[in-house]
């Protein structure tokens, strides 16, 4: 049953990543991102139940608060201040093509993961490719989106993927390490949020391609 739950959590992780790539409305993207936080927390909780480790339960709770609560709240606030630009209107790669790219990225993740899985074959490590896929999709979002906010979501997606891979490879990453990573991410998001607000105040929009003009 544990394995089934683990697989389900991984499936949810993957599905939310795909949905973030699929949808255009930033509000929906943020909501889906919060769902992914829940899925990630569930993943860690399943691992915790499997290991019977109380500190992992703590980590799971922390992830739930941070990634399903605090980060989406920050993002929503940034969106609310942003005003009109509520949609990712013109991604650099159109949606259908980016979905197909995601398909290829998935297969790539599966193709490169076997060495990692072979280190310690178990149901948890079997799911490493899922984490890798989320990492790659996050990177792809980061590269191809124009709005600063959706790029930020891409970055956070990347981080969710890294966390997932971390927990799947070595279940006991340790409370301290996870806490450190989470703090880093929080800090990065805050900094980026301030930055985007400043950019908007100065230039009126957050289409990052237009920053190229600063170069001259």
């Amino acid at each position, binding site marked *: 049953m544990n394995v*089934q739950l683990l697989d389900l959590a991984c*499936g949810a992780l993957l599905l939310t990543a795909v949905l973030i790539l699929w949808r255009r409305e930033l509000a929906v993207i943020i909501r889906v991102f919060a769902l992914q936080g829940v899925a990630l927390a569930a993943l860690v909780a399943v691992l915790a139940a499997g290991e019977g480790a109380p500190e992992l339960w703590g980590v799971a709770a922390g992830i739930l608060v941070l990634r399903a609560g605090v980060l989406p709240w920050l993002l929503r606030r940034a969106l609310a201040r942003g005003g009109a630009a509520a949609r990712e209107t013109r991604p650099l790669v159109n*949606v259908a093509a980016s*979905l*197909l790219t995601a*398909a290829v990225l*998935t297969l790539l993740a599966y193709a490169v993961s076997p060495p990692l899985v072979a280190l310690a074959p178990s149901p948890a490590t079997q799911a490493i490719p899922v984490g890798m896929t989320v990492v790659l999709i996050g990177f792809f979002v980061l590269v191809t989106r124009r709005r600063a906010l959706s790029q930020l979501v891409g970055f956070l997606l990347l981080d969710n993927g890294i966390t997932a891979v971390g927990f799947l490879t070595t279940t006991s990453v340790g409370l301290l390490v996870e806490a450190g990573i989470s703090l880093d991410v929080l800090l990065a998001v805050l900094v980026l949020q301030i930055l985007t607000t400043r950019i908007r105040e100065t230039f009126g929009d957050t289409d990052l391609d237009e920053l190229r003009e600063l170069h001259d």
Partner: protein
Amino acid sequence: MSALGVVGGVVQPLLVVAGSPLLIGVLRQVRAKLEGRAGPGVLQPWRDLRKLLLHKESVTPRGTSEVFRYAPLVLMATTLVVAVVVPFVTTASAVDPVADLFAVVALLALGAVALALAGLDTGTAFGGMGASRETTILALVEPTLLVAIFALSVRVGSTNLAAIISSTLDDPARVISPVSLLAAVALIVVIIAETGRLPVDNPATHLELTMVHEAMVLEYAGPDLALVELASAMRLSVFLGLLANLFLPWGIATTATPLALLIGVAALVVKVGLLGAALAAGEVFLAKMRLFRVPELLAGSFLLALLAVAASFFLA
């Protein structure tokens, strides 16, 4: 050919033919209730069919050929064959050598092609437009469909429908695996596109610019139209029945006893009815998508199907 298969082969087509208009009736009634209308009642599609079959004559528009006249027949024949061979009520198929998922999918495509050719045969802009859109959607649906089938058949090692359904019955835990869930979502999108439901096509519209299926069948009248309407309804119930039995096969008869058969029929009716009601309820909240946004939807469902395949291989 087992006794169970023969019984299924007789019961299933009768059930599908009799029940499909009722399914459409349920869909419309659910929609009407949710929109605060009284609705015409569940039996209305059957009343329409009776009128068309008994009291109207077929009309052959001038300049059309045999293709136009026989397309409803081909459509009906393909759907009937599918209703006979797919294990809906019994796990054994009446005609096992045809109960292959690829063959079933291709048969349903053949029916759609017959209708598209009929649309082109009329030589009107509507017919051509409907045919063109229908074949485009058909072409784009195919990869998702086959990859989803791939995901379902990999763990069974066969594309035979009876084998897939029996294996799910033997191992119920599979149903909540990511493979099943992802493949189910992909297949639902495929079914919506193939049967022309919202948001891909609007079955209630007669507005030229938005329609796909209705545009192709615009010239049909009388018994011909009745056949087309009945076959389209049967396509919907066949697809929903396939979805229900691939993922939730419980209740299907494994022996040829009357009780088992009765339970099989009841289970199918309940499952398809619920799926249909859910579909109708979902449609209330959806608007039709622009035709050129449909590829996005299908690309997404293709991705899900591919993820299902990947999951079936790696999360074993």
